C-alpha cells in the first residue's frame, strides 16, 4: 500500500500546482461534508426516537434494524414526490429560497477547526465570518415566505425575520466576550486559548452567562422549539415552508438540521474547548489517550448539545411571540453587556484565565 503511494507521488507532482491546490481543497470539503450530511440524516432519526422515548412512545422502528434506515426511506419519499410551485408565486425566488437557507449553514464549516491541523480555511477573521454567514440564512426563510404568495408563509417569514434580528445581537455580544477572553478572531486560536487544565480552563466557566445566552440564542436562531414560531403549526400551519413539497421541503429540513449541528459545533469551539480533552489536567491520565486532544472529543461535545436541542423540544412549551421578543431584547442583551463589562474589569485587574495570555 505504502509502496503504491510513493510510486504515485511523481504522478501527483506532474499535475499543475493550481489544480493540485483545488483538488486538496475539494477533498477537504468532502471529508467535512460527508460526515455532516450523514450526521444530519441520523439527527432526524435520533430526534424522532429520543423524543419518542421522552414522550413515552417508541418512534420509528420499522425500516431496517431498530429503524436505522428510516432517514433514507424519508429521503427517497421526498425525492419522488412532486414539487408543486404555487400559481402566481414568484417562481425563481420560490425555487432558490431553500438553497439560500442551506448554503450558509454548510459554508460556515470552512472555518470550523476539527483538530490542531485540520481546518479548510485558516482565516484570521473566522469569528466574523461565522457571524456574517449565519446572518445570511434568514434570507432563505424570508424569501420563501414572500415568494410563496401565501398569508401563512408570509406570517412565518415576518416572525422569523424579527426573531433572528433580535437574537443575532445577543449572539454577537456573547461572541465579543469570547474574543475578549481569547484575544483572537481565529477559531483555532480561540480553542488553543482554552487549553490547560481540562474542563476548568474552558471559557464556559468564566463566561458562564455568555455561554447560556449563546446557546439559547442559537436555539432561537435555528427556529427550533421552544422558539419555533416561524413554523408554529398550531397557528400558521407550517409557517414559511407551508407551500413547499417534495425535495424543496427536504432542503429546508436539511438546512434546519445542518444549522443545529453547526450551533452545537460552534458552542463546543467557543465555550467548551473544541477538540480539547476534558481530562487534560487530571493527574495519572497525563500521557494516556483520554487526556489527548482529538476530534472525538469535539464529536462527543456536539452530540451532547444536539441532545440538548431535542431535550428542549420535548420539554418546553412554545414561547408566545411577545415573550420571545422580551427575552431577546430585554433580558439577553443587558445580560451580555453587563458581563462584557465585568470581563473588562476582570481583565484589567488580572483576574481570570485570560490575564496570562494578555
Amino acid at each position, binding site marked *: 500500500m505504502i509502496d503504491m503511494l510513493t510510486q504515485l507521488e511523481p504522478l501527483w507532482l506532474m499535475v499543475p500546482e493550481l489544480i493540485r491546490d483545488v483538488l486538496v481543497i475539494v477533498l477537504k470539503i468532502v471529508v467535512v461534508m460527508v460526515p455532516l450530511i450523514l450526521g444530519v440524516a441520523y439527527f432526524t432519526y435520533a430526534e424522532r426516537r429520543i423524543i419518542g422515548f421522552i414522550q413515552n412512545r417508541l418512534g420509528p422502528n420499522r425500516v431496517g434494524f431498530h429503524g436505522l434506515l428510516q432517514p433514507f426511506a424519508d429521503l427517497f419519499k421526498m425525492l419522488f414526490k412532486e414539487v408543486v410551485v404555487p400559481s402566481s408565486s414568484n417562481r425563481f*425566488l420560490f425555487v432558490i429560497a431553500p438553497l439560500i437557507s442551506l448554503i450558509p449553514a454548510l459554508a460556515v464549516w470552512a472555518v470550523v477547526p476539527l483538530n490542531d491541523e485540520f481546518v479548510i480555511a485558516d482565516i484570521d*477573521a473566522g469569528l*466574523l465570518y461565522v457571524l456574517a454567514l449565519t446572518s445570511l440564512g*434568514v434570507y432563505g426563510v424570508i424569501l420563501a415566505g414572500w415568494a410563496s404568495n401565501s398569508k401563512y408563509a*408570509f406570517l412565518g417569514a415576518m416572525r422569523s*425575520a424579527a426573531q433572528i434580528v433580535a437574537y*443575532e445581537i445577543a449572539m454577537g455580544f456573547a461572541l465579543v466576550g469570547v474574543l475578549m477572553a481569547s484575544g483572537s*478572531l481565529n477559531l483555532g486560536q480561540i480553542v488553543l486559548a482554552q487549553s490547560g487544565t481540562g474542563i476548568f480552563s474552558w471559557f464556559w466557566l468564566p463566561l458562564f452567562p455568555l455561554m447560556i445566552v449563546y446557546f439559547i440564542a442559537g436555539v432561537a436562531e435555528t427556529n427550533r422549539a421552544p422558539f419555533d414560531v416561524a413554523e408554529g403549526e398550531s397557528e400558521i400551519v407550517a409557517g414559511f415552508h407551508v407551500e413547499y413539497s417534495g425535495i424543496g421541503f427536504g432542503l429546508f429540513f436539511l438546512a434546519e438540521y445542518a444549522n443545529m449541528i453547526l450551533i452545537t459545533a460552534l458552542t463546543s469551539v467557543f465555550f467548551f474547548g473544541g477538540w480539547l480533552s476534558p481530562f487534560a489536567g487530571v493527574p495519572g491520565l497525563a500521557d494516556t489517550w483520554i487526556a489527548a486532544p482529538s476530534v472525538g472529543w469535539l464529536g462527543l461535545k456536539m452530540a451532547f448539545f444536539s441532545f440538548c436541542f431535542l431535550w428542549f423540544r420535548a420539554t418546553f412549551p412554545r414561547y408566545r411571540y411577545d415573550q420571545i421578543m422580551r427575552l431577546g431584547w430585554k433580558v439577553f442583551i443587558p445580560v451580555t453587556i453587563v458581563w462584557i463589562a465585568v470581563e473588562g474589569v476582570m481583565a484589567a485587574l488580572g483576574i481570570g484565565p485570560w490575564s496570562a495570555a494578555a
Partner: protein
Amino acid sequence: MIPTILFYAFAAVLLVAAIGVITSRNPVYSALYLVFAFVQSAVLWLLIEAEFLAITLVLVYVGAVMVLFLFVVMMLDINVEQLRQGFTKYLPLGVVVALVVVIEIANVVWFRSEGRAFVTPDPYPAGYSNTKELGSVLYTDHVYAFEIAAVLLLLAIVAAITLTMRRRPGLKQQDIAKQVAVSAKDRVRIVKVESAKE
C-alpha cells in the same frame, strides 16, 4: 492575473446589480438587488485584502439592515402609478443631481489622479492582519472620533425608540413580569407513567 479577472467579473456583476436596484418595478426585487450589490462589493474589498471591512459589510448591511428593509418593503402596498405622477415634474432636478454626482466621480477618477497610473497595490506580507491593524488605529489615533460616533449612534437609537413610544391611556396590557413569575406548582402536575417497551 486571476485577481484581475475576478475583479472585472465581480465589478461587472456589481454594476448589473446596481442598475437592477433602480430599474426593477417591484420594490422587493430592488431590495434584493441591493443585497446582491452589497455582497459583490464585499468581494471587491476582499480582493484588496480588506477582509474586516468586507465581512462587516455583509454582517451589518446584508445580515441586519437589509433584512429589516425587506421586512418593511414586503409589507408596503406601493402604488406605482401614483409614484410616477410627479416623474416629469421632478425630472430636471433629478438630472441636475445626477450631473453633480457624475462630475464628482469624474473629478476623483480623472483629474485628481492625473499622471498617476492605476496600479494594483502590492500584496501584504504573510501574517498581516487587516482586522488587527484597523483595530489598533481606531482605538489609538482616532479614539475620540470613534467614541463620538458611538455616542451619536446611541443617541439615534434612543431617539428612534422615543418616537415610537406612545403611552395611550386605557390600554390593556399584559404584565409580562407577573406572567413569567408564575410558579410551576400552580400550573403543572407531575404524573408518573410507566415507560414504553419495545
